């Protein structure tokens, strides 16, 4: 019998005989032996993976079983809000990463600094957001290595993320995020834009993702204008965050606000807002309910 490289099946996992054994050698490709799948006498599926068949299968496009793509997000963040004001932009989000209905991680940072002029907030799958941060760090590192004082501007980061998200969407393997990019451009103008998981992107004076697009947007439409002062902007952000916390079940009373101005980026420590829950009807909610016991 011709000695052939053997490997355990995918079900048992990699590592025992090494993935390199799944690659057929040139000798195998030149003179492929007659295929004899070894089935165990007890009945059941053949567990020996024939590298030649695998090679042929891969050239037909479905190597080793069906390709898996992102179908559902698992650990998610909710809304992100952003507004422009006189000196720059503010982006805010809560610090919750939920695992379905469970409020699993209560100290995630969902608004981050990208470089000295750009901030990014994300809702959706947190692991994809971490991947996006890695990718953006590579961009910033490239700027550092170039050593010419030029940094990616907020609009460039926004355009880049738009291309990344659209590209992943085209592969049917999206990064499951809604991103809010903000900052101050080199000419001093504030910039604020949003990129969705399909690659849809737009710029505006105020953006909101997730629940906030229903809850906070009316507040922004009423009260936001591009030359509002910092105190007014912060008050508006707080009100919007409060509304989102009241009405979104997947949120917590712990927020961070990132601010980008011409002089730099600041991200606040997590803080909470005053919320009122002691309404009369909340005290015994089922007291007057029909059929309550």
């Amino acid at each position, binding site marked *: 019998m011709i000695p052939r490289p053997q490997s355990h099946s995918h079900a048992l996992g990699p590592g025992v005989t090494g993935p390199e054994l799944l690659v057929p050698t040139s000798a195998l490709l030149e003179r492929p032996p007659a295929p004899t799948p070894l089935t165990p006498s007890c009945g059941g599926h053949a567990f020996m993976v024939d590298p030649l068949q695998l090679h042929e299968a891969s050239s037909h496009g479905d190597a080793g079983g069906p390709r898996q793509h992102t179908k559902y997000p698992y650990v998610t963040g909710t809304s992100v809000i952003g507004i422009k004001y006189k000196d720059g932009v503010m982006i805010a989000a809560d610090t919750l990463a939920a695992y379905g209905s469970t409020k699993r991680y209560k100290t995630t940072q969902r608004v981050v600094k990208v470089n000295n002029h750009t901030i990014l907030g994300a809702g959706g799958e947190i692991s994809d957001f971490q991947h996006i941060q890695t990718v953006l760090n590579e961009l910033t590192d490239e700027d550092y290595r*170039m050593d*010419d*004082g*030029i940094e*990616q*501007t907020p*609009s*460039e980061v926004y*355009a*880049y993320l738009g*291309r990344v998200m659209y590209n992943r969407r085209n592969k049917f393997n999206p990064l499951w995020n809604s991103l809010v990019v903000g900052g101050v451009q*080199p000419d001093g103008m504030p910039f604020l834009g949003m990129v969705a998981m399909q690659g849809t992107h737009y710029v505006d004076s105020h953006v909101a993702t997730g629940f906030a697009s229903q809850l906070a947007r009316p507040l922004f439409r009423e009260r936001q204008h591009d030359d509002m002062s910092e105190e007014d902007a912060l008050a508006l952000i707080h009100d919007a965050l409060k509304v989102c916390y009241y009405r979104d079940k997947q949120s917590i009373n712990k927020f961070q606000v990132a601010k980008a101005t011409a002089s730099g980026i600041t991200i606040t420590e997590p803080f909470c807002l005053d919320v009122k829950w002691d309404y009369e009807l909340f005290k015994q909610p089922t007291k007057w309910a029909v059929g309550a016991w």
Partner: protein
Amino acid sequence: MFRNQYDTDVTTWSPQGRLFQVEYAMEAVKQGSCAVGLKSDTHVVLATLKRSESELSSYQRKVFKVDDHMGMAMSGITADGRVLCKYMRNECLNHRYVFESALPVGRLVKQVADKHQISTQRSWKRPFGVGLLVAGYDMTGSHLFNTCPSGNFYEYKAMAIGARAQAAKTYLEKHYESLPPCNMDELIRHGLRAVQACLQDSELSSSNCSIAIVGKGMPFTILEDAALEPYVSAVKEEDQPAIAEPDAVVDATTVVEAEMVAEPAVDNTEAAPADEDEGPRPMEI
């Protein structure tokens, strides 16, 4: 320099630590026709002399637009230069597609210089035989770079490469300090005068030179033939030995009268004033 036993291969060092093949490639740049670049705070101008193979053929194209904010002039083996131009245009396009913004000039020049360096360190390649003058205006201001076959690149306030470039450099060395505040017209005229210095047998005309300009609010534009005529005329007018007119009066837009150009053109290369009896000078109109 003369032939020696260390110059056959680009990957052979000489005992003095020189790579002769690279140096010979730089000689090829010096054989090309002259290209001059100069910049002010807001604009960059490239001026080149066009050479043609014979009277029947068209002129060899030396100035290429790379992107709206950047362009280059080459001197040397133009086929190599075309390949680099295609590469630069591709990089700019890709950058615009991904980032929706202009690729900073210095970064692209660095990439081009790295491409040059690769061919100086592979035994199966030969160095590029072309020098580029890259002119561009990006968010950090106006830039003029010179790349050379060795893989080095330098940023310049003004530079000339190619045949008889030293004459142009002499002119530029005299005038480079007055360049930064220049406006577009003045800069073009400086460029034409610099390139005129490189001419040996012929005189400056709108058919044997070309100008390219890029700057703040001005996308890369090539001026040739008819578009260049006013500037060439202006330069020739100024070169008339001045009787009582200061040069500063010359304004390019007023010197379009072609009939005025026809008479004194022949005297351009001579120093003797011959137009004292030719009537009022055009600037007076």
